[in-house]
């Protein structure tokens, strides 16, 4: 940047001459700047092309599909009549729309709170160096490394009402008297699914939060300790403010990723029982691939993207204000 600034400075000086005698130098400098800008754009070019093709195109296609009547017939004949907002109207009018929105919100909030809090607690715990702490921290990432389908299969057994290990333990510890219908009762199924999602999400959260904690210099804590700030006070006055940046990223990304979650729910309950775990994402999938109504499926996924967008914008705006204060 300094080079550019210097160039501009010289430019001004040359023009200030007023005699127009340095045109040749002028043009050369402008060409040099153009070349410089071009070189800079080249750094971004591959990313821009990639994003346009692999994200832009699908988004546009999905947007248009939301306005079309797109069925199995369309795949063969290519005909997709324009129906305006009919798909959206059908989606908003349907009896499960309210359910899916509520479930999506509950699922997301439950998952994020669980993942974040537990992830943070684990990160804080492992900040202390004790024997085997490094190995343990690496092992904690295991849930994240396993293929999701395998993870959900195992959890499905573990949460089985009759013979699942979780119920066996709970009953053995006399915490419950009857087996809990984790995945089979509409009242509890969402909680069951949230538990699994939290389990899957803890590694991501704790890894990022841990490295965020690492970045906070020890001197701050030592200085704070001199002022009597230890334990909870140290956390509130030293750790938390310095961690805010990473926390923001973890939360925003966490919400965005969780809103999209599909295979976890499909693997555990398929959206049931009785739509108790049907979210916007699973509903979109169901409409498109079991009912073959791709237009309404696209409409639902567009609603999902908008929800995501609104959240991101609102959160960032609120946070910017908080940071500015």
């Amino acid at each position, binding site marked *: 940047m300094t080079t550019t600034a210097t160039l501009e400075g010289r430019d001004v000086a040359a023009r200030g001459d007023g005699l127009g005698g340095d045109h040749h130098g002028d043009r050369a400098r402008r060409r040099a700047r153009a070349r410089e800008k071009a070189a800079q754009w080249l750094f971004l070019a591959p990313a821009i092309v990639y994003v346009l093709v692999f994200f832009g195109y699908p988004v546009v296609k999905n947007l248009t599909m939301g306005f079309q009547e797109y*069925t*199995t*017939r*369309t*795949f*063969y*004949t*290519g005909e997709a009549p324009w129906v305006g907002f009919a798909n959206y109207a059908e989606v908003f009018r*349907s*009896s*499960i729309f309210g359910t899916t929105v509520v479930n999506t919100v509950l699922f997301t909030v439950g998952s994020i709170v669980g993942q974040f809090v537990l992830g943070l607690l684990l990160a804080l715990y492992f900040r202390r160096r004790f024997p085997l702490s490094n190995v343990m921290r690496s092992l904690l990432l295991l849930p994240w490394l396993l293929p999701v389908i395998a993870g959900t299969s195992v959890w*499905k057994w573990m949460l*089985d*009402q*009759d*013979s699942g290990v979780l119920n066996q333990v709970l009953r053995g510890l006399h915490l419950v008297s009857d087996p809990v*219908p984790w*995945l*089979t*009762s*509409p009242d509890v199924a969402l909680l069951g699914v949230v538990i699994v999602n939290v389990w899957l999400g803890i590694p991501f959260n704790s890894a990022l939060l841990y490295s965020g904690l690492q970045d906070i210099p020890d001197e701050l804590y030592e200085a704070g300790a001199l002022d009597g700030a230890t334990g909870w006070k140290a956390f509130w006055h030293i750790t938390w403010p310095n961690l805010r940046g990473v926390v923001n990223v973890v939360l925003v990304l966490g919400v965005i990723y969780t809103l999209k979650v599909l295979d976890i729910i499909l693997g555990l*309950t*398929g*959206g*049931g*029982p*009785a*739509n*108790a775990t049907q979210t916007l994402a699973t509903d979109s999938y169901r409409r498109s*691939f*079991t*009912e*073959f109504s791709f237009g309404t499926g696209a409409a639902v996924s567009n609603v999902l993207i908008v929800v995501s967008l609104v959240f991101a914008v609102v959160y960032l705006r609120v946070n910017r204000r908080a940071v500015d204060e």
Partner: protein
Amino acid sequence: MRRITTGIIGASAAVAAVAALAGCGGADSAAGGGDITLKLTDTMSETSAPIYDKIYDACASEQGITVESNHVAGSGLIKTVLQQASSRTLPDVLMLDNPDVQQIAASGALSPLSDYGITGEGFPQGVVDAGTYDGELYGIAPIVNSIGLFYDADKLQAAGIQPPTTWDELADAAARLTTDDTYGIAFSATNSFEGTWQFLPFLWSNGASEDDLTSPEAVEALEFVNRLVQDGSASASVVNWSQNDVNDQFIAGKAAMMINGPWNMPSLEAAEGLNFASVPLPVPSAGDELVAPLGGETFTVPQTGDAERMAAAGEFVTCVTQGENQLTMATGRGAVPSDSEVAQQAAEENPLVASFVETVQSARARTALLGESWPEAATQIYTAEQLALTGSASPADALAQATAD
């Protein structure tokens, strides 16, 4: 019924790795010089694929052509078919689960089998109905299946119970067979077309029909199934079980009876210490006719635009679906040959299949009545079942709610 048996092919490691590294895909074989190579896609699993491949090879060499078979997972098939349809890259011979035939035929992607002289003669009405769209036959199933009642003969004998034949007997038997660690009966009531499939025999045998799901007969059927769960004779987890899970429960001894299909025979026979048998599903009252749903994959000939290859494909399908091949497929997979005479032969050779041979004769195709609109009704059925069995609504309300949309 959307089959659970799906495709995994154990490709040899070396071939797969080399192919992967060379980035090669499904390359088109040279079809010049009169040498025809047909591309075939089916949904056969790792265990069933060899049986089919042998038949394909035999028919192919008889016809003087080559056939490349591709086995894909059943649940991902429709997606692939749709995408192939849109890019005009459908295979020459396509296996479709019978309830999907109408949908795909309606889109124009399939060719009428009458073009190749296939008429469905000798096949049960249900089989022909399933593959017919707008009066034309588009898919023909060489083997079919349905569901019946499997039971643990030892457990029934110990309790002194005869295999039930009516609903009341079924409820009674299930209740008496329920102990502390065994449920009397297990079935699938999950929120997918599998749950619907398992409910259909109750719906249809009671005289109800999928185009009027709020009729008293339909409510009765749902009330009966609901009672099994409310009485504790069936686990509440049935709302989450696939038919595979049900089979697992039965083999593990966690259920004395189960509603399931003959494709489980190989695993049932392999289970040690399990003395099982099967009877047709119980009917509402003595003397009623059992109407069970018809399952089975059909062979279809997609429109590829190449008349020569389509004709060859038609001839190939005729060969593959003929009598003796039906018997081979049926025996290997635990199913019933479509041709009635061959079916009788199969029943004689394997008594365990006999009850299914009987059931299939009067089985009904799921798409016979509603055609393309079947998926919608199917969704309503499993939604209602889920609402009722989870206690969220009474059976009557559940059906009303599910059909309200």
